[in-house]
Each structure stands twice: as C-alpha cells, then as structure tokens.
C-alpha cells in the first residue's frame, strides 16, 4: 500500500488547497487513484497529458492533479478536448466526466466523439445521480429508483452506457467499478493506450444521495453490493440469460481497430503539402 500512496503523491498538485470537494467514502477518489497508476505505468510525460472535465462532482478531479488541466462548462468537456487534441495531436487527452455531464447535457458531444474516433480517453464516472446539485435523477438512474426530482420513483429508462458508446462507434469500450480497483487500473491503462476514442465507464457510489434516497446504506454497503452484483463479461457469456439479468457486466465490451481521426487529418495535410 505504501508504494501506491507514493505514486499518488507524485502526481498531486502541491499548490492546490486540500481537502478535496468529495464526500468521505466517495468513489471518485478511487478512480483518481486508478488514473494516476495507469498514467504512471504508461510513463507518460506529464507535460503532454491534458485532463479535461465538465461540471459535477467527477469533473472536479483534474484540479488536484499536476497535468495540464481544463475544467470546462457543463457537458462540453469532449468538445473542448476535441479542440485540444486536434490542435496538438501529440497530447494525451483524457476526459473526466459523469453520467449527467456526459449523457444528458453532453449527450450530443458524447455520441459524436465516439463516432469521430479521435484519440481521446473518456472516463465516465457513473454514480447514477446528480451529486453536486443535490441528488436529482440522471440518464443512468434506474427506473423506479428515488431521487430528489423523482420523489415517487423514476419514470424514465436509463441508458446502457457501453451499448450507447458502441452504437455510436467508439473503438474501445469497457466498464469497471470502484470496488474492483485492479481491474479498473487495467481498463484505464488499456483505454489510454488505445489509439482511437475509448470509453471507460467507472461505476461508482453516491451514498450521500443515491444511497440515502434509496436506502442502500453507506459507502461500504454500496461497495459490497457492487462486489456482489458485478459480473465479468467472460463469465456471463457462459451463463444462462436469466442469471445474467440485472447484473452489472464488467470488462471490455469492444476493442476494434479503426483509423484515428488526427492520423487521417495529418495524412491529408501531408498529401496537400506534397510530402
């Protein structure tokens, strides 16, 4: 453990005022740890890493880390990231976003980023609710669950994030949870390495709102539930469908080769300049 913490401290911003904004027990800090370990293992030059985020609890993550960091407007992280990446294709661009940020207000940017296939890694921290504004239902709040704006239960149906990303054309799609940290480290590592648009859903807990409003207990209880409910895709493939129903599937949903946008644009520049 000591070793892990040393790595984390290497990347924290010395000048930033701590503590962080997250509630005690929040899963976002675990995702931050996974991200740091993935970047450290990849030995990326931190001057060439840009973290871009939108608005919400998850989007506060970049400010604590010593990279180029860009905290944008609600839902627009991927649009800003697209500009950073295309202007400087050498940059490793990693987007940190949440379920409300990426899928409600930023839904349009999300699907078009998947389709465009620019080499951006999008880490979508899904806690199934709007945490920062006080627990309103989001596009991933399960049907009939309770939220501050769904006092009688949510009447809507949630997005299935991996299906949405695959349907929109992402090159790499994976889901992990904040309980299964070793796997999450690996998924983020692979996502950053992937040339093309990669989406890593990090399933997380908001015990403060989602947990409390749905009587799911504290963060430990919610993490234990994650442990019980998660099912690796490989295992699910060997099980009858009724046993898979209602489970949280984890692992790599797709990993396909498609020529990356900046590479294609660069080839265009080369050909126009007769090189």
């Amino acid at each position, binding site marked *: 453990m000591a070793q892990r913490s040393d790595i984390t401290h290497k990347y924290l911003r010395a000048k930033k005022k701590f503590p962080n904004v997250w509630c005690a027990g929040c899963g976002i800090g675990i995702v931050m740890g996974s991200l740091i370990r993935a970047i450290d293992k990849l030995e990326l030059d931190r001057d060439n890493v840009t973290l871009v985020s939108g608005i919400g609890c998850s989007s506060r993550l970049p400010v604590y880390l010593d990279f180029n960091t860009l905290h944008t407007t609600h839902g627009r992280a991927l649009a800003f990231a697209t500009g*950073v990446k295309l202007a*400087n294709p050498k940059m490793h661009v990693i987007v940190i976003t949440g379920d409300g940020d990426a899928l409600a207000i930023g839904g349009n940017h999300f699907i078009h980023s998947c389709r465009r296939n620019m080499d951006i890694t999008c880490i979508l921290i899904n806690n199934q609710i709007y945490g920062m504004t006080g627990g309103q239902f989001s596009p991933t709040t399960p049907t009939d669950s309770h939220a501050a704006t769904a006092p009688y239960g949510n009447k809507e149906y949630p997005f299935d994030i991996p299906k949405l990303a695959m349907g929109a054309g992402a090159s790499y799609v994976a889901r992990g949870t904040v309980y299964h940290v070793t796997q999450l480290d690996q998924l983020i590592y692979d996502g950053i390495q992937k040339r093309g648009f990669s989406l890593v859903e990090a399933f997380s807990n908001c015990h403060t709102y989602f947990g409390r409003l749905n009587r799911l207990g504290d963060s430990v209880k919610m993490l234990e539930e994650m442990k019980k409910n998660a099912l690796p895709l490989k295992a699910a493939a060997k099980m009858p469908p009724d046993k898979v129903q209602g489970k949280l599937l984890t692992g790599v949903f797709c990993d396909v080769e498609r020529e990356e946008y900046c590479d294609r644009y660069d080839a265009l*520049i080369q050909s126009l300049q007769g090189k």
Partner: protein
Amino acid sequence: MAENIRLMQGNEAVAEGAMIGGLRFFGGYPITPSTEIAEILARRLPKVGGKFIQMEDEIASVGAIIGASLAGSKSMTATSGPGFSLMVEGIGYAYMAEVPTVIVNVQRGGPSTGLPTKVAQADTMQARWGTHGDYIAIALAPQSVRETLDLTVRAMNLAEVYRTPVTLLTDEVLGHMREKVTIPEEGELEIINRQKPDVPASWYKHFEITPNFKSPMASFGDGYRFHVTGLTHDEEGFPTNKSVEILAKLTKLRNKIMRYLDDICQIETDGMEDAHVAVYAYGIVARAARQAVQMARARRMKVGQVRPITIWPSHDKKYKEIFSSKNLEAVIVAELNQGQLVYEVQRLVPKHVEVISLNRFDSELITPAQILNKIKEVR
C-alpha cells in the same frame, strides 16, 4: 510587382483575413449566411498545416476553438444569430478563462430562426450582453469587403493581445456582396501573436495580475501545467470563494480592456466640426449614411457622420467629445433593428441634443433617400 486584385465576397474576405492573420484552427457548424467562411477554410487550412473541423453544433464549435487556442493555435468560428445564441455559453467561458478566440457573426434577421437569407443588425446588443454575468465584450463591425478582411486580422490581434473573445459583426449583405479587393501584401498588415511567458514553470501564474493587466499565456504542452476553469479563480487558476480574490479577478478582467480603450476603439467621423445634424450608423448602414450625408451637403445642409468601427466596448469619453460639437442639434441613429444603439447614443449626447431613431426591420436595407428625408425633417 502587380497588385493582387480580386473580386470577392465579404465572407471570402473573412477567410482571406483569417489566413493572413495566422489562423490555424477553425471549428464551426453550418449556418446561413456564414457557411462560405467554413467552406473556404476547410479547403485552405490543411494546406498550411492548419486544422478545420465541423462540430456537432455551435456549442461544441466554440468549445473546440477554446481548446485549440489553449493548445496554442489561433482559433476562430463563424456563425449567424441562432448559432451565436448557442455560442454565448462558450464566449462567457473564454472571457472568464482569458482564452483568445474570434467569433464571426454574419447577422441575419431574427428573432429565432427568423430570416436566414436576409440582412439585419439585430444582434448588436447580443454581442455586448449575450452571456450571463458582468463582462466587457469586444466587437468590431466592417462596412466593406476590404474592411472585413482588415478587421478580421484586427479581431485576431485584439484577441491575442487582450486574451479575450472578440466578435466580428458583419451581416448577410456584407457577407455576400462582391467588391474589388486589393489583397494586402505580406507585411502590410500588422500581425500580433500572444505573449508567451519567459519565467520558469514554478514561477508561472497563468492568470497573473500584472501592473498593466496583461498576463503572458503559455499553451498546454509548453511545460507549465496550469489549471483553467470557468469558476472564479485565483492567479494560479484554482477556484476561489475569497472575496478579495474574486474582486481582484473580476476587476482585472474589466481593467485589461477598459484601460486600453484608446487602442481598442476605432471611431470614424466626417464633417462633425460644423454639423448641425449627425448621422450615426455602423456596418452596411454606414454606407447609406455616407451617401445621404453627401447628398445633404450638396444641398448646403451642415450634416456630419459618425461611424463606430469598434462597436463594443463604447469609448464614452470620445463619443461625448464628438457629440459636444458646438453646433450639433440632433443625431440620427440609423440601424437595421427596432432600436438598439440608439440607447447608447442617448446616454452620450449633451442634454440639448435630440436623438432620433431611424429603424428598418423588414429585411431590406436603409436607403440613402430614407436617411436624407430624415435629415430634412430635422432641419
């Protein structure tokens, strides 16, 4: 060397000016009557190693140009009213985060979807007050195709110098009409690039408050690793709730523009020394005003003209001087809207000077004869 003379549209002139000014990134979304700008830049930018991208909407377009500018590229987008409405979110961000960007608004008739192919000047106030919160906007407005080219370069220069979004306000007629343009030779127009820091990374503050309110700007990838946010922030860029830091930041944003009005604001005047009546108009309407003033002078009427080239910010002191011309009795404010700049003029004239509004919003241009008739009514 033979002069490079071409017949071109205003929209082509924006693209030409952008290339001369060193544009390296354009992100946009198709909208009439601005699309030629995107079409030309899609063809020309990659030839010089620049980047063009068509985004999924105007909100994404302005986001992309802010990201590209932070990565070090001179960046621009072009749109019209409905798109500008969507972009104001990003314009507010670029103002707060001090990111040089240029937004071209080829104005068309509104409100809402309005008149895609017809002229208007109804976004004049939107260019000033579009985004939420207090802010100081810079907006420039050309009256000819050649001036469109020049002001595109100037908009880029101002964005770089003042680290702020700059709007170029043209309109459907200017954008689509063709005029003879002498393309400026290399070196003829001043091109300004943002000031880069020369301090070590540990000393660098991306939002430093300096005595002249200008702070050097590093790009992502330069080794400075700074934080950028739309939240009110300290000099390092970290969010703050401390009233001292909030006041310092918001005052800096204001001062960095308001202390340089003499540099930013261009106002053209003609015959104001002995004028009894002045015609105040910008952009395409200023051309009709010019002709009307000449016609009036030929009839021995003492009429002058005031043409704001920098629409925003308003150089109040200069306007007050101009409008305190000793014989001045009335100012006619001619605009292609229901009356927007007229309130600015009312605020800046001496008490005894009458301000008369001349508006047209039926999608047609104000004619010289209309303005002349108004002058005759006043005299």
